């Protein structure tokens, strides 16, 4: 799922002009589950803005990344001057495409695609490089979890299982080694990984998926 975190309040406040009517629009999918942009947070933020003297409303739609849901909120949106969207970057843009004339501000910083490790702890797991190879590395993605995306073994900076770039993170290659050792499949590491074709990842420019068979 997509993980995002709230922008600093100061930044959000700086967006808003005095005396504007404001709608805080939450998104009911990923950011709800990662507790940064759901109904709860929307209400909270609108309440905070009220305390700062703005006139606010709050609303939450199922998914801001889909015009159909956004358009449902059109009456509410028509009433206000500005919208603070508590959705990932996709949601904000989708919203902006639905309501070209409105002032729309992002309330969140979209951080990564990841999973909840435990209550209140989320970790990145996928980069969306467009060419999945986790099966070769004991199901630990070196592209995402190695700071240097190394595919042929660790760098010299792997110290007692931790990464040298971010010392509080585990070294991906340590994890890979441990996992494969447990399965005693260490031999798969002998296979040499050729240089990757990164064109499938975002280096190849904006990505697009077309499926002729489902377009009517």
């Amino acid at each position: 799922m997509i993980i995002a975190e709230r922008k600093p309040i100061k930044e959000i406040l700086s967006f808003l002009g005095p005396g504007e009517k404001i709608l805080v629009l939450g998104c009911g999918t990923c950011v709800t589950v990662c507790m940064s942009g759901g109904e709860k947070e929307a209400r909270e933020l609108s309440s905070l803005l009220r305390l700062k003297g703005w006139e606010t409303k709050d609303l939450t739609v199922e998914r801001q990344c889909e015009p159909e849901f956004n358009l449902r909120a059109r009456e509410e949106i028509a009433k206000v001057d500005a919208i603070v969207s508590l959705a990932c970057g996709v949601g904000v843009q989708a919203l902006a495409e639905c309501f070209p004339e409105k002032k729309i501000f992002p309330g969140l910083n979209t951080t990564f695609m990841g999973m909840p490790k435990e209550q209140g702890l989320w970790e990145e797991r996928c980069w969306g490089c467009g060419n999945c190879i986790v099966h070769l590395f004991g199901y630990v993605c070196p592209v995402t979890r190695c700071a240097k995306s190394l595919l042929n073994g660790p760098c010299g900076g792997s110290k007692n299982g931790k990464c040298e770039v971010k010392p509080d993170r585990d070294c991906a290659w340590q994890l890979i080694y441990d996992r494969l050792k447990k399965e005693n499949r260490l031999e798969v590491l002998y296979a040499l990984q050729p240089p990757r074709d990164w064109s499938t990842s975002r280096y190849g420019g904006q990505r697009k998926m077309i499926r002729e068979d489902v377009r009517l």
Partner: protein
Amino acid sequence: MNKLLWLENEAFSFPDFWIEEMERDNGWKIEVKNWGNKPDNFTEYDRIFILGDSFSFTQEKISSLSEEWEVNPLKVRVFPAEEVKIIFPKSFLSILEKFIIQSLSQPLFPVEARRVVPENRVLVLPQLSPALEQTLKKRGIDTIVPPSSFSLQREGINFRLYPSGDNVGAIIISPLEEKKFPISFSSSVQDTRKLVDIEFMEKEIEKRDFRKETIGFIIPKKGVTEKEWRKAFHLSQTLVERDKAEVFILVEEVLVAGENLEKEYRKARSSGVIFEKVDFSKLGTRPTLDMRGIEVEFATERDKLKREVKVDWLVLLPERNILPFKLAPFFCGDKIEGEILPLENPNVLPFFSGIEGIFLCPSEKEDELSLVIKKYLTEGVVREIGRGEVDEEKCVLCLTCLRTCPWEAIEIEGERKKARINGERCHLCGLCASFCPAHAIEIKGLSLENWVSAVSLGGKNESSSFRL
């Protein structure tokens, strides 16, 4: 027309004029009774107001009262008697009126206070000690010996045991104890085979005579139970008095807090046992040349003098620390049970592990435990069924509730796989509701709207209190 009942307490009784006024203005029918002459049938009233100190009318109490009266707990409202003291007579009556109006305005939901009684059967893990078995039998609790391979799942307040499929009301975990000793001994010392534990000594002392031998005890300060101290005092005394042996007891602290323990300690001392308070970090041991004994070197706390004693036997009392018990492998419930350790929380039952129905049994506490469990299994608990509800439309299945519920009352069930609250386990703490990011969970009668409306009511310019 609303039929209201007031249960007043001796601290305050309602002025008649006010009651008439209320009945005239708001069209209520108010009956005032006190705890002495309670009505037989409570179901006829729309609301039951209690004027009592909220200190004793906790959520649990109200539940059990409404269970007793067979009324919807949402109908029972407590007006704190302390309030009367604080704001009487000034604005008291007007606030009282507001209070009634506010509580009448709150919607009623079909909630039932029910007493749930667990099965009178317990499962003991990892194994059943004879002492525990005996005391459980004495109190008429049947026990299940766990089959070689089994799994557990929550079944209302009970736990269901698979594959056999029968329910148990409670699980007792008699935790394994790790015996550790604060100081380590070199292998050569252990080779003398004169390094023994107190059980060994207990057996030996019946068999043989320790005439003219020297015996040393080493007793750490932590994790040694009262019973073991007793044993040590007793053994050392018999060794001296019966066998004329020479006995040293090396300790950091002597424990005498216990029924007549001090007496026994003094008896042991007066019989000629030598107690030395020593610093264990400075305690050294090595085998004698003939390998028939151990030389113990220590510095007493009195005069920091080093001295050396040659002992023929060195008796050790290890520290016992409870090892956490992992329930996860046995559990096929939704929530992964973590390690079970005793809770240091005086507000819950002693021996309570943090999960309702799972008890811990520390050694030498079997009898107390069986008392507690007997109570739990016979009286059961009163729960308000249908109080907490999950809005399946809103639930996004983020599992926050599952991870935050302290009572493990959340189940992920139903063909649509949504969170569901197990009413028999729910304590109405509302943690799930307050953490749920999608606002899917509502604890009936305790929703945000009530509070905020209630906040806007209440006394002016003085301390005043309300129960929500």
